Structures are given as C-alpha cells and as structure tokens.
C-alpha cells in the first residue's frame, strides 16, 4: 500500500516538474516566438497562442503519462519488464513495481502546497464564472431577441459583444443600433457571429484556467495576445464576408470613436478587460492579408508528436526516474 502511495507522489512530482520546465521554456522562448507569430494569419496565431497558454498543464500530464508507457507495455507483455534492469537503489516510476516507501516528507509538502495553490486559483476562476453567468442571465432577461440571432439591450451606451461559454449569444445596445449605418452594423454582426462560430468564449475560459500554470507576466502576455489574435481573426472573417477590409477598419474606428466621445457616466469605469487593440486591428486590416500556412500542418504536428512520444518514452522514463530519485530522497 505504501508503495502505491509512493508512486502517486512520484507521479505528482513528475507532473509538477514537467509543468515547471514547460513554463520556463515558454517564458524564455516566447519573445522570439511572438516576433515570428506577427507574420502568421490571425486564426492560426490564435490557435498557436492557445496551445502555448495551455502547454504547462497539458504537457505536465501528457509527459507523465508517456513516462508510464514502458511500465504499461511491460505489464501487457508487449515489451520486456524494464524494471529488471534496475538495481535496488534506483527509484521506480512504475505502476507495477512500486517504490519501497510512501514517499518523502518534502515531496508531500511540495505537492500539498501546489495542490492548495492550484485549487484556490481554480476556485477563484470558477467563482468569477458563476458571477458572470448570473449577470449574463440578468442581461438576457433585460434584452429582447430579434429575427437575426442578435439580442438588443435598451441602453444609450455603444455596446456590442458576444457572451457565453458553451452557448454564446450576440448582444447589441439600442444606442449602437441607432447610431451606426446599416452596412457598418452588418460588419459588427459578422464579427460577433465569427466569435460564436469560433467558440471564442469557451476558448477564453479554458485559456484563463490553464494559464495559471504560467508565470504571472507570461500569463498576462499570452492572454493579451490570444485576445488580440481572436479579435483579428473575427475582423478577417467579417472582411471576407463583406468584401471590404477598409470598411471593417472604419467600423472599428466608428465604434471606438463613439466610446471615446461618450460622457464618462455612459462609457463606464475602466475595467480589467485588457488593453485596447483598436490600433493593431485597424493597421492589420489596412495591410495586405496574411497568407494561410500551406497544408494540414496541425495534423502533421500531432502525428509527429505521437511518434516522438513512443520513440522517446523509454529515455524519458529513465531520465525522469533519475530526477525523481534525487527529488524524492
């Protein structure tokens, strides 16, 4: 029994270590990656930034699972039992041959502390989501639907937004409806429907939750870049459907100008939404559109990762056992 508990500790320490290494690698490499991403189409850039945002958690769990692969293959008798090659002093990271003890005190302190911090951060996110959900129910009750899948809120403020996680809805204020010409409104709606199609509400929620595993400065940078890439991707979709990139740029500036000129009690207080991306979005629309990446790069990348996982499982497993042996003692 104590051996099984020891294996649980080793697995926890492995997840933690892989997550930390990934967070450090992201922090060190992101300035270079960010420069290169500037040349990439917004929809692809959003996908890459989303992957980077979730990388520490995903890779922490995935690499730990890969480390268990030799043990699994040995148990299924597909490969030889790798544990026979170890001496008595080598730490076993194996769900068949458990370590002799229930793990070190330092290891449990580390894991308990990390679990407490992660749980607290996740609960704060969940609480924020529940508050947001309740408020959105109120917004829905004060708005009325139209035939065009848009809900109208009776307010003078220039509002247009998409809200919701699993099921997003588009909201626009009566103030905006009366102020903008029909062709600009069409652009605003195309942009918001693009957010619905792309499931940006769900993506943002997952990114915010998983990003807690990054260092604070890196977290803010990744979430800001994800927001900008998502907005630009929706601008590109609106431009594609309406056929006029410059008109989309005009629409963004028109709404921003309405917000800028509105009295402060109508504009509302500054919030933690993030920096205004109006300048970057308009400049991107006035530039030529970025070309899409050739071929199905994401499928090839996944296939390559799967092959690498099988090829590197054994050396990764041994390296992890050696590292854990140092940490756990």
């Amino acid at each position, binding site marked *: 029994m104590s051996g099984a508990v020891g294996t649980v500790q080793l697995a926890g320490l492995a997840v933690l270590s892989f997550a930390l290494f990934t967070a450090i690698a992201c922090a060190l490499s992101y300035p270079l990656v960010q420069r290169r991403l500037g040349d990439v189409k917004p929809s692809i850039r959003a996908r890459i930034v989303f992957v980077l945002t979730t990388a520490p958690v995903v890779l922490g769990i995935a690499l730990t699972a890969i480390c268990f692969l030799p043990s699994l293959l040995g148990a299924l008798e597909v490969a030889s039992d790798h544990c026979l090659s170890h001496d008595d002093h080598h730490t076993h990271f194996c769900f068949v041959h458990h370590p002799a003890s229930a793990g070190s005190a330092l290891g449990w302190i580390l894991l308990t502390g990390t679990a407490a911090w992660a749980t607290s951060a996740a609960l704060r996110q969940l609480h924020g*989501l529940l508050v947001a959900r309740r408020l959105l129910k109120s917004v829905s009750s004060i708005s009325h639907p139209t035939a065009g899948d848009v809900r109208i809120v009776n307010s003078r403020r220039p509002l247009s937004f998409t*809200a919701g996680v699993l099921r997003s809805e588009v909201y626009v204020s009566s103030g905006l409806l009366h102020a903008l010409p029909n062709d600009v409104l069409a652009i605003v709606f195309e942009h918001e429907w693009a957010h619905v199609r792309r499931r940006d509400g769900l993506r943002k929620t997952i990114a915010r939750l998983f990003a807690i595993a990054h260092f604070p400065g890196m977290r803010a940078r990744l979430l800001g870049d994800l927001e900008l890439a998502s907005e630009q991707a929706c601008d590109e979709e609106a431009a594609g459907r309406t056929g006029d990139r410059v008109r989309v740029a005009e629409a963004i500036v028109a709404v921003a100008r309405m917000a800028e000129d509105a009295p402060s009690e109508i504009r509302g207080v500054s919030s933690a939404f993030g920096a205004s991306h109006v300048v970057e979005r308009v400049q991107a629309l006035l530039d030529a559109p970025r070309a899409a990446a050739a071929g199905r790069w994401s499928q090839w990348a996944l296939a390559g990762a799967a092959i690498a996982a099988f090829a590197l499982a054994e050396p990764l497993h041994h390296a992890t056992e050696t590292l854990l042996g140092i940490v756990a003692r």
Partner: protein
Amino acid sequence: MEHLWSHGPCGVKAVHRAVGARRRITLNTVQSTMERLYRKGLLEREKVSHAYVYSAKESRESFGARVVEEIVSRVLGGETEPMLVAFVNVTARAGKEHLDRLERMIAERRAEKSSERKGGR
C-alpha cells in the same frame, strides 16, 4: 411592484388578495417583502387608520431603465469578463490622437483605392 404599478397605492391585504393568495404566499410573507422594498427605497408608505398604504416610488419605465443601466454598468465593470468578447472594448480607451491618426490612414487608403480604380479604367 407590478401590482402597485398597475393598480396604484395598496395596502398589504389588497396585494396579498391579488398576488399572494394565488401563489399560496402567506400574508406575513407579503408584508415582510413590502417592508423590505420600502427599506430599499423602492416603495413609499403612508399610515391610513391602522395600516400602511404602499405606493411605488418611481414609474415602471424609469425603474426598468435604471435596472438596465445598473446591469450594463456591471457588465462594463468586468464582472462578465471571463465569458465575454466585445467588438470594441469601450472601457479601454483608444485615445483621441490614435483615433484621429487611424481615420487619416483610412482616408488615405480610400484615396489610393479610388485612384487605382480610376487608373485602371
């Protein structure tokens, strides 16, 4: 509130007969609720004989508009930020100078496109 807006000033018993009895809500519950609405400033009251007569402090329209603006303010204040994406973040100001510059850039691009079209003819 709806009953008071529709029927004007009423006592607790009249409200209970019209609203509470139908929903199997006791007289005490109706009385506590109206007392709470009075303390929140949504109702006014006047003592007539031994009982209070309550009336709405503001009209249905102005109350509705106030509720809408309070909810919208909370949205703009960031409470829905975890699950909301806006066309333009109206609270993060772009700045007048930036907007002026962007409008000039757009006008220049329009002029370029127009002269390209004329040159193409």
